[in-house]
């Protein structure tokens, strides 16, 4: 059995395109060894000769150990991944990091805010919350334009069981909402039947920070606002140092932080 | 006891000299199981004092055996196959002899290497002159400091750094002219930072807002290609205010009247208009420099890589002489040599016009001296420069070339022209460590030993000749360049190059070159190197040149005039284009790009553009752009920075993926044939806008 630094083989079983330069991948374990993961955790994929990169679970491992990821082509590893076909074997390590605070969200009114490709890291938690009667949950999803949207199939499913608002910087028709997710909080509050009691967000840091400020001003305690951060994560176990955020490492202590934790980490340094 | 191969198991540390630039830092190579796994800085080294730059720290990657060429390779049907040395030598000798028989001895040429040792460079020029019978021998000093050699020889009599690196701490003003030592000569740059922290003032003259410019007391951000106008302007102000070193001028210099007359044509208003530097800053700079107790001036490629390169250097010299800022500790004219051994390669006579020690080939007595020692009649014909050889290759004059460790396809101006020239040769032989772009065009490749695998000497920018030591054996069949050349010489019937070791070559150099006369390997080892001239009069070397008198006697003031670069922006090509180097990389990148850290630091192609120009072209960070000049075009990503002034864009030249030298101009300095790498005109196109 290899240690945490050495990948194990997984097989690509399904690939399909979703949005601009993004693709769905489904993986299954080769050795038959299944692993379990929690919403918000991440894993790494390795392609020999191209290194390794971190990805979030779009769906958590099922009974057969199959799980999914949405991958966007940005660098050399993802380019190599886009060259892969069904049946190809690649390296996997994980799961790493903490998860969305599901226990704490029980019986709360939850607002989820996603910006751009910040939606996939929220998919697993949406899947779990949207099926719970006791937890009213709504999603506001902001994108640059309709062509930039991802997770079409998932959103179709979610639409059947929860309120979703989709908004665009550059809409393609008059019927579509314009603006950032923040512009539509009122509308979502109405749909949810009251102000959110907890907020989960993932997307550009500017957007997340603005959202957090908004809810703080409206009296939501900072420990009820949760953000998923992105950093350059390498080792996954808090050793290599690349994903530092103040005195924490995003790969081991994060990627999910409460606004309360973030404020504290940010106040540790000045520059 | 045995240990697993991956266990940490230091076996020894070999003290040698860092191979990455002309500063010549001391470096210890850590050897584990016959592999170089790391480096140690050397606190006792007089130059580096326990420090290294990012390149030095990554030396173990640079010499990683991973992609080394380990046997001779011969091109066959478009690809390379391993061959024996015998077979490779056979192919080479046949082609070289055939070319010489058909077109004469000058139909062949040799490019030596400023990264190789003195011993290798000496062997290369001896091979060209004594074996091939041609003065077609040159190396990349042509494209860095040939104007320094030519300019300072005329004014002072010697083209090297006049002072020592130690003088940085002795100066109360440091002038940094057209270079950024913190990027390219980092450890020396660090010593400038140290001097600044200890109270020295900094005056930076550079079109770019460099790191030192940001720290400077005064920054003259002149327009590209206006060095002479600026210096003439400073001289005009100095003379007009009576700030010149009167006593020094009358006792040690000549031709003052002519210079005064020339610089009178450059009053501040006119100079401000040409250079874009406000008058008050010109006056402040002139005062600062002329009135400093000890002002040390250092310059780099921003002076030399122009069609006016030699005149730029002469201007610098005029300025130092008039202000009397030379010949004393903490002063001087200090060209920063780029490659680790570019000083040595010049000293060795790997130049078409001089024998070792700058002894002119044109002089019969010199030819007789070397002919006598080398036991061979020597050619009188004027040799070709490196660019002359590429031109000759295109015209059919030059048929065969041997290139030792240089990569002109990446580093020389106008890449397409270089490639066509090398393709046109009957035979191209490349002696290399790895498959560079130039090696990939060769007919025969011979595997060379790296600096860490051989003995020899490097001469740093302060004229310090330093010993290097082999840390490990060369991989496969690779061997030192001098040995390859010696064996090739034997095949061509010449047996005065079959040296037993590098030390024997050094002794031959010392016997023939007065500058190195008093040196020997044991003496170099004892003294952490010695600075030339080292001879009976100066047995411990010479840290400071021109103390009592200049090498040529009197310092010569030579009036020079401002001239625009050969190509200036116009409607079709509206931006100035200049080339730069990055801290993390060295030359064509064949060594530094093997480090995963250095390679990560920079994308493999960058265009630096000012925020104002970027905005006008709707360029955002990392926007894909196309840069076109009259010679070619390159596509790369943009980095927006106020380091470059509005109207000027810059590209580093290290990357084969985005070769800046597809754009650069081959227009040359008439004296040295230095190409104008620092200025040409380009057009930048935003490819993302074009797409939409």
């Amino acid at each position, binding site marked *: 059995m290899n240690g945490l*630094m050495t*990948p194990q*083989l997984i097989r690509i079983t399904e690939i399909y395109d979703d949005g601009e330069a993004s693709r769905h991948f489904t993986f299954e374990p080769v050795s038959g060894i299944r692993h379990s993961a929690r919403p918000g955790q991440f894993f790494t994929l390795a392609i020999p000769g191209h290194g390794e990169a971190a990805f979030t679970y779009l769906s958590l491992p099922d009974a057969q150990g199959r799980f999914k990821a949405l991958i966007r082509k940005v660098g050399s590893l993802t380019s190599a991944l886009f060259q892969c076909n069904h049946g190809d074997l690649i390296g996997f390590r994980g799961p790493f990091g903490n998860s969305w605070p599901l226990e704490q969200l029980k019986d709360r009114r939850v607002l989820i805010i996603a910006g751009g490709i910040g939606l996939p890291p929220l998919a697993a938690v949406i899947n779990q919350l949207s099926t719970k009667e006791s937890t009213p949950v709504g999603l506001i999803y902001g994108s640059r334009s309709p062509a930039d949207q991802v997770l079409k199939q998932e959103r179709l499913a979610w639409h059947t069981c929860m309120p979703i608002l989709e908004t665009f910087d550059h809409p393609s028709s008059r019927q579509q909402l314009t603006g950032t997710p923040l512009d539509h909080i009122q509308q979502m509050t109405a749909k949810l039947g009251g102000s959110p009691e907890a907020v989960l967000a993932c997307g550009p840091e500017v957007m997340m920070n603005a959202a957090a400020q908004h809810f703080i001003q409206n009296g939501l305690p900072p420990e009820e606002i949760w953000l998923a951060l992105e950093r350059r994560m390498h080792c996954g176990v808090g050793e290599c140092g690349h994903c530092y955020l103040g005195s924490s490492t995003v790969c081991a202590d994060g990627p999910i932080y409460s606004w309360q934790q973030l404020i504290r980490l940010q106040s540790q340094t000045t*520059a | 006891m045995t240990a697993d191969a*991956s266990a*940490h198991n230091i076996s020894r540390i070999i*003290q040698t000299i860092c191979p990455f630039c002309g500063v010549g830092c001391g470096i210890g190579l850590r050897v584990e199981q016959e592999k170089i796994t*790391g480096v140690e800085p050397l606190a006792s080294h007089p130059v580096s004092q326990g420090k290294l730059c990012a390149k030095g720290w990554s030396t173990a990657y640079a010499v990683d055996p991973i992609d080394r060429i380990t046997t001779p390779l011969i091109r066959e049907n478009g690809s390379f196959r391993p061959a024996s040395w015998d077979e490779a030598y056979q192919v080479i000798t046949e082609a070289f002899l055939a070319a010489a028989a058909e077109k004469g001895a000058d139909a062949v040429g040799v490019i030596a290497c400023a990264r190789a040792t003195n011993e290798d460079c000496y062997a290369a020029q001896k091979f060209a002159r004594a074996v091939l019978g041609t003065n077609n021998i040159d190396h990349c000093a042509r494209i860095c400091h040939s104007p320094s050699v030519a300019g300072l020889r005329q004014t002072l009599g010697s083209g090297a750094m006049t002072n020592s690196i130690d003088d940085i701490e002795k100066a109360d003003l440091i002038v940094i002219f057209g270079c950024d030592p913190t990027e390219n000569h980092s450890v020396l740059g*660090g010593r400038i930072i140290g001097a600044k922290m200890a109270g020295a003032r900094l005056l930076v003259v550079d079109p770019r807002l460099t790191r030192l410019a940001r720290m400077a007391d005064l920054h003259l951000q002149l327009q590209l290609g206006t060095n002479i106008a600026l210096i003439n302007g400073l001289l005009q102000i100095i003379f007009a205010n009576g700030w010149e070193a009167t006593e020094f001028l009358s006792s040690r210099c000549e031709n003052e009247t002519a210079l005064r007359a020339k610089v009178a044509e450059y009053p501040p208003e006119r100079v401000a208009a040409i250079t874009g530097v406000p008058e008050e800053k010109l006056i402040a700079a002139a005062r600062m420099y002329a009135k400093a107790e000890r002002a040390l001036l250092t310059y780099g490629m921003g002076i030399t890589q122009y069609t006016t390169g030699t005149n730029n250097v002469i201007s610098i010299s005029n300025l130092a002489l008039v202000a009397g800022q030379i010949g004393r500790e903490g002063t001087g004219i200090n060209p920063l040599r780029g490659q680790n051994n570019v000083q040595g390669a010049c000293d060795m006579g790997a130049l078409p016009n001089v024998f070792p020690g700058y002894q002119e080939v044109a002089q019969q007595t010199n030819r007789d001296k070397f002919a006598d020692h080398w036991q061979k009649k020597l050619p009188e014909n004027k040799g070709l420069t490196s660019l002359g050889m590429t031109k000759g290759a295109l015209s059919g004059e030059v048929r065969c070339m041997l290139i030792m460790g240089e990569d002109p396809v990446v580093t020389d101006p106008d890449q397409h022209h270089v490639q066509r020239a090398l393709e046109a040769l009957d035979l191209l032989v490349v002696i290399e460590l790895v498959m560079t772009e130039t090696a990939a065009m060769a007919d025969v490749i011979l595997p060379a030993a790296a600096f860490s695998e051989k003995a020899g000497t490097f001469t740093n920018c302060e004229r310090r000749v330093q010993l290097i030591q082999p840390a490990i054996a060369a991989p496969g069949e690779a061997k030192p360049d001098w040995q390859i050349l010696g064996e090739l010489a034997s095949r061509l019937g010449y047996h005065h190059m079959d040296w037993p070791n590098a030390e024997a070559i050094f002794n031959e150099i010392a016997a023939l070159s007065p500058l190195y006369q008093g040196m020997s390997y044991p003496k170099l080892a004892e003294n952490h190197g010695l600075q030339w001239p080292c001879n009976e009069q100066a047995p411990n070397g010479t840290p400071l040149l021109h103390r009592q008198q200049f090498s040529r006697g009197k310092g010569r003031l030579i009036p020079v005039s401002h001239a625009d670069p050969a190509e200036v922006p116009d409607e079709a090509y509206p931006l100035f284009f200049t080339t730069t180097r990055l801290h993390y990389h060295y030359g064509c990148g064949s060594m530094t790009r093997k480090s995963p850290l250095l390679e990560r630091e920079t994308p493999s192609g960058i265009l630096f553009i000012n925020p104002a120009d970027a905005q006008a072209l709707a360029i955002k960070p990392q926007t894909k752009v196309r840069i076109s000049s009259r010679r070619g075009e390159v596509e790369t990503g943009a980095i927006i920075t106020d380091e470059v002034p509005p109207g000027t864009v810059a590209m580093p030249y290290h990357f084969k993926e985005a070769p800046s030298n597809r754009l650069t101009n081959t227009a040359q300095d008439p004296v040295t044939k230095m190409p104008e790498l620092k200025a040409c005109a380009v057009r930048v196109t935003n490819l993302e806008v074009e797409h939409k």
Partner: protein
Amino acid sequence: MRAFLLDQIDRLRDHLAAQRSLFTPQFAAGSSELSWLPLSHNTPSAAIERPLLATYPAKQFFFPDREILFQFDGADFKETLPKPAPQILFGVRSCDLCAIAYQDQFFQQDPYYQARRKATLLVGIDCQLPCEGGFCPTVDAGPFVRDGMADLVCHQQGGRWLLISQTSEGEALLDGLNLKAAAEGSISQRSRQEPQVAAQFPSAAHIETGIQRINQTQVPAELWQAMGLQCLSCSGCTNLCPTCSCFTSYDRPVDNGFERERCWDSCLYDAFQREASGHNPSAAAGQRVERFWFHKFSDEYFKTFGRYGCTGCGRCEKTCPGVIGVHSVMKRISAIL
């Protein structure tokens, strides 16, 4: 903990070298550079008795500059754990021992580090004089070896050596030397002596003030920026720092496959945190310089490790070409009003 008397330190060293491979700081021939090297015959012990630090701390024995993590042979990934022979590091100074203890904790879960560490016994030495630039007393990292940080400790007392065993493995190494037990009270005499040695160190008030100001985020961003401008991103400080542990990894092609090598990285490099998208949370050099010192001197890390990430060795000051080593930085921080 037991104490013995030893007449000559070389006797101990040679006795140990007969049992395991032994590495100790030595001068290269004809040079004043002190490096960690395998014990060679006739190595004089001069370096041991003088207050000199080797160029490197001992960290590369456990966390080497470069090491292979696994291989991919074309079919599968194979972990490549090191199998080091039993070894002894002889003459480790207290600052470096404290750093080893720090990294032991940091790399607790790292099988590569632990494999090397478990094969190693440490023989520490008390410093009897301050070394150049060192300030270990200020950060509780010396001058004498702390309890539990070495297997054996050598302490000069009068013309002889007091040899203190701190572990049973350490004591077992002494079998066959037939050492006499030291007089009662010699250990407490050692303890009384330490403050006297510590008192000989030059004032480190700037370090103390600096630590306070860093923890109270009182250092203005402009000062970090000014010092950032002086950072030439050489990686020298992080390479020589005994507690620095950042690494990167990359794939190297080898015969029929690849191997993943991890190698030391530096948080001072511009692209250390740059993401594939180009976004860089620490794009400004000043941020990176602050980060480095925060990591060394923040109470946040003190809470985790029971000590600061700086053990007062002063190596960064000596190797920094940009004059922003620990003394330079802390002096500037302590000079702000």
